[in-house]
């Protein structure tokens, strides 16, 4: 594996290694473009992004990445059906106004979707709430309730039940504990972070 891929944030590294080379990819909430640049440079992808923060967009443009300043809640509607092979939503689902609608949009635009999020049922989060009696502030959820952009906290099990309800198939899943991958067994309790590769159920 190339150094450019391993230096990515762990969830992005998993995604980058599992995107087919040469694919058309839309990264929704692409931040400073680290994943896009890796996909373009290491995987030969046609990688495009959407990002809400103008400073991040300017940084992406300076790297030569095609990124649109936009809001996933509003601007995904303007992409045609199946215009990408993959849509990626990393650590953004829990910040959106209507996560279920966003999931449907991702699968409409891309044939498949990578979605990653911090697991609100991780044991540290549970202990923090159980014993602290306050909204948890942990390594992956470092911001207090009144300032956090995370308005729709979600657990691995919650997410799976939403997928069932919407007829969305899980092609593959990965779970991270710290920066290491962990098994799917008891992931709802043990994983700090979950990554799913999704497609529409046939």
């Amino acid at each position, binding site marked *: 594996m190339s150094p450019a891929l391993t230096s990515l944030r762990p969830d992005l590294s998993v995604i980058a290694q599992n995107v087919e080379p040469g694919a058309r990819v839309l990264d929704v909430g692409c931040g400073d473009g680290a994943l896009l640049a890796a996909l373009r440079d290491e995987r030969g992808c*046609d990688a495009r992004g959407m990002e809400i923060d*103008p400073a991040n967009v*300017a940084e992406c443009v*300076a790297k030569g990445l*095609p990124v*649109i*300043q*936009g809001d996933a809640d509003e601007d995904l509607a*303007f992409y045609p059906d199946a215009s990408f092979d993959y849509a990626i939503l990393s650590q953004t689902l829990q910040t959106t106004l209507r996560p279920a609608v966003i999931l449907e949009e991702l699968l409409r635009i891309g044939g498949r979707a990578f979605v990653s999020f911090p697991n609100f049922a991780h044991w540290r989060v549970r202990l923090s709430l159980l014993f602290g009696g306050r909204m948890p502030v942990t390594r992956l959820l470092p911001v207090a309730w009144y300032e956090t952009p995370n308005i729709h906290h979600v657990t691995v099990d919650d997410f799976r039940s939403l997928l069932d309800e919407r007829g969305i198939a899980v092609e593959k899943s990965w779970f991270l504990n710290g920066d290491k991958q962990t098994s799917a067994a008891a992931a709802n309790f043990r994983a700090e972070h979950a990554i799913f590769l999704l497609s529409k159920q046939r």
Partner: protein
Amino acid sequence: MATAPTTVASETLTLPGPLQLDCGRQLDRVDVAYEAYGELSPARDNAVFVAHALTGDHYLASPHPITGKPGWWARMVGPGKPIDTNRFYVICANVLGSCMGSTGPASLAPDGKPYGMRFPVITIRDMVRAHVALLDALGIKRLHAVVGGSMGGMQALSLAANFPERASAALVLAATARHSAQNIAFHEVGRQAIMADSAWQDGDYYASGNRPEKGLAVARMAAHITYLSEAGLTGKFGRNLQDRAEKTFGFDADFQVESYLRYQGISFTDRFDANSYLYITRAMDYFDLAEEHGGYLANAFRTTKARFCLVSFDTDWLYPTAESRNIVHALNAAGAPVTFVELSAPYGHDSFLLEVPALDRVVTGFLDQ
């Protein structure tokens, strides 16, 4: 290597054939005045065409012959600058209908007299046709990029849409795909000010030695307000009085903002022709890129292979961000690679011409590919 830009000082090309216009007429013996900076590569693939705005000209990065001021985008174009003349061969041409060397209403018609109002009504696409004819003459098949702000952005969009094989990239700043009712309304105020000036003489004023300077100055004053932000005007002038301690209870320029606008209006008449102002504002008002392509803006970009970058400014109320987003959505629908950012800058529509460091980074990054 920070050397002075290599300049081919103000060449004028007479187009070899007639120019067919959207209005159905054609113009013979069209002159296109232009300046070029840098060196064209042996493969002729490093050309960047910069399209100027309504009252701009081809003095992009070299001093203006009338005002003596630096080129209108000297901060952006030059050796080591975002549009780097050490790397790119940068061309800027005076638009058709203007008055700085390209054929316009002040030019002589075949009968030896100035066209005046006999000049055909032109469009943004007609301006682009003249640019493309210039590129043909220079032997440039495909631009590395076409770049423009405001009306220059309209030309960049029009070139990418109507001549999709001629540009690999289009950089469109503070622009719109069509003029809104409000845009047209402001232009109509300016045109009426010119035409209400008795010196206008139905546009046939060139031989009289009496030009409609008052009307043109008022047109410029009204337009100039639309280029600035309310906060910018307040910050610069507030309600400050001009060289006096008290209001005079008269109609002199008591306020600094009045004095500033009067100066902007009067100095403009030294360098611009009133009829050109009528014709170019008309071309902008007629601009509707969707209308040219069956009513769907996305259709305008179906065949383009170019990369696009659109930039809007948060204080621009002339062509607000929603207009750029409209273009971005159409480009997305057409599958074109597009970058878009709304930058924060205090200067209103004119921000694209002024000191906005974030814009420099965007331009550098986009042209670098």
